[in-house]
């Protein structure tokens, strides 16, 4: 899709980040009740039962009703809690969850400039060159919400939940970082849009028909050898405290874990934070391993659909995967969780990263995406940024 | 206009705060945090001076300082946990085996 530079005297390209910001937040807030509904319906289907069916058609308004109920619930706080921190915790959770979404590469917009040139602008809130690190940083801050909530509630179940949460988040962040590093190693950049660009070439640099350029086969889930995507997916589930890694809020052991003492809107904020986190890490998954806004095949019906639709589709795929897992697996024991994180995924990730490093040494002298000059990129120029293997043929 | 000196002064203030914190606190964990603050203040001046001279070397030092800080904290907290197990307290004024 090509947009004009000026619409009604408004200079469009500088506005793109704001559009992205508004779009992201608006979309997330809008989709949240839908997400909960989807989850409930999907689980119900998987468990062969009816699921929500009272409020609205097929129970579609059930979540809205729940939100309304939460709004009007009494806002209680424990007497012996550390009130300031107790209030701070849910805010932190939501804040971190939302801010992580700021670098997701929704789509690339192309503007037809007044002087005849074309300019591509990423539809991203902040397309920073340390995008991956930014996401890691922000998601590492998420642990504070859990820890502080657990501690400030002054409740031993909450404290246990908080401790579990912090240990779990720190442990799995390592594996997550390793998986992401594999992608960074192959794309040569930390900027998410460029990582997406790096997936838009021919699969493995093979001389295949045009239709495979940027197709599902050239995305990094395959390009980095499947192991990183598996590690990342497991780690992202653990990072968001979802089943089967939902130990910090294990209802059968710890009542509700770190948010036992939270009710009403504060609870709703935790809930929001959790779902936003799911969306964000799924979005990161989509951008890193599943080609972001790229269509699965480079042919007409797919390429006509705008990139952000593909992106959202992939995110929704991630959400479905979450739900599927939740319906399938029992919760892990705590030691099994640590065992998996430290003794299985971390060594595997390290070894795989090392192997990939060796492979990429043999591939070509690192031609980093950072080297590409910042100017309007045309389709022909994009070909030149493909791995050298193509150029040599 | 913000000059390098602004950053250096800020760094000095943060560093002094850390020093005073080390001296007045009795909780070794908080003392540790103050030490981390001092390290950060030093890092800040490293980066400011590196920017001043247009060199990336200042940032190199910070990377190593970060790594060393991480190592120091892990061992230090390990020691604190071990001391707590042995003495049921971590008050630095009660850890006085050296006192005759």
């Amino acid at each position, binding site marked *: 899709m090509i947009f004009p530079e000026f619409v009604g005297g408004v200079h469009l390209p500088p506005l793109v980040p704001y559009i992205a910001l508004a779009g992201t937040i608006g979309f997330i807030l809008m989709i949240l009740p839908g997400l909960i509904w989807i989850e409930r319906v999907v689980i119900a289907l998987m468990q062969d039962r009816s699921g929500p069916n009272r409020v609205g058609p097929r129970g579609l308004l059930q979540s809205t009703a729940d939100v309304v109920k939460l709004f009007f619930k009494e806002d209680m706080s424990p007497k012996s809690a550390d009130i300031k921190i107790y209030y701070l915790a849910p805010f932190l959770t939501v804040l971190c969850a939302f801010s992580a979404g700021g670098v997701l590469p929704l789509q690339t917009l192309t503007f037809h400039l007044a002087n005849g040139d074309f300019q591509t602008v990423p539809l991203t809130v902040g397309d920073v060159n340390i995008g991956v690190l930014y996401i890691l940083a922000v998601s590492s801050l998420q642990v504070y919400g859990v820890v502080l909530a657990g501690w400030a509630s002054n409740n031993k179940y909450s404290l246990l939940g908080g401790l579990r949460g912090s240990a779990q988040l*720190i442990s799995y962040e390592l594996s997550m970082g390793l998986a992401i590093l594999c992608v960074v190693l192959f794309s040569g950049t930390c900027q998410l849009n460029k990582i997406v660009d790096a997936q838009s070439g021919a699969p493995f640099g093979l001389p295949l028909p045009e239709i495979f350029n940027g197709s599902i086969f050239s995305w990094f889930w395959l390009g980095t050898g499947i192991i990183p995507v598996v590690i990342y997916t497991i780690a992202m589930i653990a990072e968001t405290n979802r089943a089967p890694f939902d130990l910090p809020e294990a209802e059968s052991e710890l009542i509700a874990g770190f948010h036992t003492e939270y009710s009403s809107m504060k609870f709703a904020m935790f809930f929001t934070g959790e779902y936003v986190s799911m969306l964000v890490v799924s979005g990161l998954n989509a951008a890193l391993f599943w080609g972001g806004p790229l269509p699965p095949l480079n042919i007409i019906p797919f390429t006509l659909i705008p990139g952000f639709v593909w992106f959202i589709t992939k995110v929704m795929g991630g959400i479905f995967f979450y739900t599927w897992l939740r319906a399938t697996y029992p919760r892990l024991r705590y030691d099994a969780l640590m065992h998996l994180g430290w003794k299985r995924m971390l060594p595997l990730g390290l070894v795989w990263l090392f192997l990939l490093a060796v492979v990429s040494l043999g591939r070509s002298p690192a031609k980093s995406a950072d080297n590409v000059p910042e100017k309007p990129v045309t389709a022909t120029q994009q070909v030149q940024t493909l791995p050298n293997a193509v150029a040599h043929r | 206009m913000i000059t390098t000196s602004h950053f250096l002064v800020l760094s000095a203030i943060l560093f002094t705060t850390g020093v005073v914190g080390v001296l007045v606190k009795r909780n070794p964990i908080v003392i540790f945090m103050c030490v*981390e603050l001092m390290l950060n203040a030093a890092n800040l001046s490293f980066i400011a001076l590196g920017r*001043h001279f247009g060199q990336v070397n200042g940032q190199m030092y910070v990377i190593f300082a970060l790594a060393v800080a991480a190592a120091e904290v892990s061992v230090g907290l390990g020691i604190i946990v071990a001391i707590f197990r042995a003495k049921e307290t971590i008050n630095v004024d009660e850890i006085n085996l050296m006192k005759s």
Partner: protein
Amino acid sequence: MVTVIAFWVLAILSVVASIAMVVTKNPVRSALALVGTFLCVAALYILLSAQFIAAVQVIVYAGAIMVLFLFVIMLLNLGSPGALRERGSLQPVIATGMGICFLIALLLSGSLIKLRLPAGARPEVYEPLGTVRGIGINLFDPKQPWLFPFEATSILLLVAVVGAIIMAKRKV
């Protein structure tokens, strides 16, 4: 203009947070104040065009080190204020006085040093200064002295990991 405002806001915030860390009696609040200071410092790093360091600062300090602190505080249950009550002594007074003297001395000495640019240095901020690429190329450049410290640091970290486990484990 944005930079000036950002600097003053962040500077004041970081100083306030650091003083709050020292003053407050509750270790958890101290830790939170310190996290605030770290975040402000990280933002200042971005002002200094050290994006990579800023991200690492958040990941390592805020995301790992301070969580470890909080973890230990909670583990030892030192959270309740007054668990370590300060006894009356002259130490804090002397320390504060001496600290102020120290600060004044630092500032004085700073005023005596002229920051001169060496010949050939580029005072302006150039693009790859703080990016992952700029740092990485410098760090692994055989002509630069950083390669050996880098390897040494990795060994240091390994030793620290082993040491921490030995220290903290009940039975080895």
